[in-house]
């Protein structure tokens, strides 16, 4: 069966791959958006935390024989905790400065983390053996759906949905939204905003760590895996606008999809298509698709 002269199987496979990329864009840009909302910091180290998530899963398996499912819980928690410590010790010192300083500071932090991992594990990729439950897949008639890939999409949709629900529908989320809008006033109501900030940073980087664990079985685990990805995620964030949580999630999946489709019709352009879309969005809607116009 052909669609626009392209075999359906090829098209659907690329769409699936695109959706998986989109899943990572969504989780990472969600984390960036939450952190930026409260801390006003563009967390350049986000890619490094994602990489740490993947390495975390690998190391847990090698040293403690921890299975994938447990790692999916333990590794993000550990990384989140590390994030809280970093926020308390380092980031807290620069909140009264221009936002640019936060970006440069976290850029430096990312360099240090990636450098340490490169010293320890070299620059080549390490394999993570696929958990048994994710081997095999389903034959959908028009394509073969590997279980591991289906799981990545399901897990990321679930995490994004839960995060959105927590922020939009719970008491904790309402504090968070209040603190994002008016931190001083929120504090006057007796809410511990500094603690909220610490937890937000921890949660944001924990999301990156979670994405890293998800990535471990399907991509090769190497110290540089987050460095290029995070720049594409920046473009995703600019396209979506950092104003809305659901916007970040939707934009992430959408752009992954666009990338996948581009790969079918014009493979060479697939790495640049997101940046081209960013250029168009800057021209017609500078604040981003879901951003508030300044």
């Amino acid at each position: 069966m052909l669609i626009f002269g392209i075999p359906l199987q090829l098209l659907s496979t690329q769409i699936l791959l695109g959706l998986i990329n989109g899943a990572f864009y969504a989780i990472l840009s969600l984390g960036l958006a939450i952190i930026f909302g409260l801390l006003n910091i563009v967390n350049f180290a986000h890619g490094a935390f994602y990489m740490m998530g993947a390495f975390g899963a690998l190391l847990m398996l090698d040293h403690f024989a921890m299975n994938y499912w447990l790692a999916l819980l333990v590794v993000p928690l550990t990384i989140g905790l590390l994030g809280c410590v970093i926020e308390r010790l380092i980031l807290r010192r620069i909140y009264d400065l221009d936002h640019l300083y936060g970006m440069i500071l976290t850029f430096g932090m990312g360099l240090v983390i990636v450098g340490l991992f490169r010293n320890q594990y070299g620059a080549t990729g390490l394999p993570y053996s696929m958990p048994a439950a994710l081997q095999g897949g389903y034959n959908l008639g028009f394509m073969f759906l590997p279980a591991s890939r289906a799981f990545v999409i399901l897990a990321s949709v679930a995490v994004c949905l839960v995060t959105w629900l927590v922020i939009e529908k719970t008491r904790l989320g309402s504090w968070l939204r209040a603190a994002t809008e008016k931190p001083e006033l929120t504090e006057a109501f007796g809410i511990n905003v500094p603690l909220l900030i610490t937890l937000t940073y921890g949660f944001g980087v924990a999301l990156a760590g979670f994405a890293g664990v998800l990535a471990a079985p399907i991509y090769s685990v190497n110290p540089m895996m987050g460095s290029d990805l995070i720049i594409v995620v920046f473009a995703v964030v600019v396209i979506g606008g950092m104003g809305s949580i659901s916007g970040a999630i939707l934009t992430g999946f959408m752009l992954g999809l666009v990338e996948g489709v581009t790969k079918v019709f014009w493979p060479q352009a697939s790495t640049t298509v997101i940046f081209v879309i960013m250029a168009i969005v800057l021209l017609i809607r500078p604040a981003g698709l879901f951003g508030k116009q300044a």
Partner: protein
Amino acid sequence: MTTQPEITAAGLPGMSASHRNLFLLLLAIVAVAPFLAYPLLVIKVLCFGLFALSLNLMLGNLGLLSFGHAAYFGLSSYAAAHAAKVWGFTPEFALGFAVLVAVVTGAVFGALCVRRQGIYFAMVTLAFAQMIYFFSLQAPFTGGEDGIQNVPRGALFGLFSLQSDMALYALVAVVFFVAVLALYRITWSPFGQVLRAIRDNEPRAISLGYRVDRYKWTVFVLAAGFAGLAGGLKAISFQLASLTDVYWGMSGEVVLMVMIGGMATFFGPLIGALLVIWMQNELAAFGAWVTIVQGLVFMACILVFRKGLLGTIADRLGLKV
């Protein structure tokens, strides 16, 4: 932030006595350096010094941080290398072509980038630079992972061979010095004053009738052009243009140079370039330690040393640099 020089009777900023002395000092250093150190190493410092100054033209005066400045540096080094090697251009035309490529690219991307401010500007410049990186990775004329190697240095105007390192050094030093003077002139021109007015209070500059976006765009193009000149010089001098020059790591490095030197100073980025290259040389044998140390220096610059080396010294001595 940036200090103001004395205003001359004509009402235009002129070069103060202390700045004139600094330029004489710089001239003396540039003249003596190749006899004290390996000329190619000094050339590297001059190229990166010019690159860092071009970034700071935008950052220091407008407060806009381009996190993708390597795009113009790298693309131009490809342009110069291709022109010299494939088309057989003489060095001066290869350099001219390099600057042209940077200016045209800067004009296109600049028009898009100035539509966002602050932190978004940094992200957008970075994203476009990554686009140019991916383009360079695939384009047929860049040589992919190998880059363009064995670029001929050629003969200046077709007459003076640049084969010897000293002849090459003479060319680089002259181009460098003229470019630094031009950057200085731009910084302290009425145009530069408007830039600082925009940086300090953009709504007021708009209400005074300045077309702010046009000023930002012009600076973007100028900064890209000077970065392109630096990239072209680097490609001709080291006979190589490679993906390293367009990668985000390079963009980060040049930001580091500016931060170390002090972004509120004119001359600071030169010192930053010197220190970063010295650091790379010292740590070259230790693999990823270069990255780690650079990251730590970045963090130190932000946490404890925000004025940079020259900025701090100048503050202590009450100097304006």
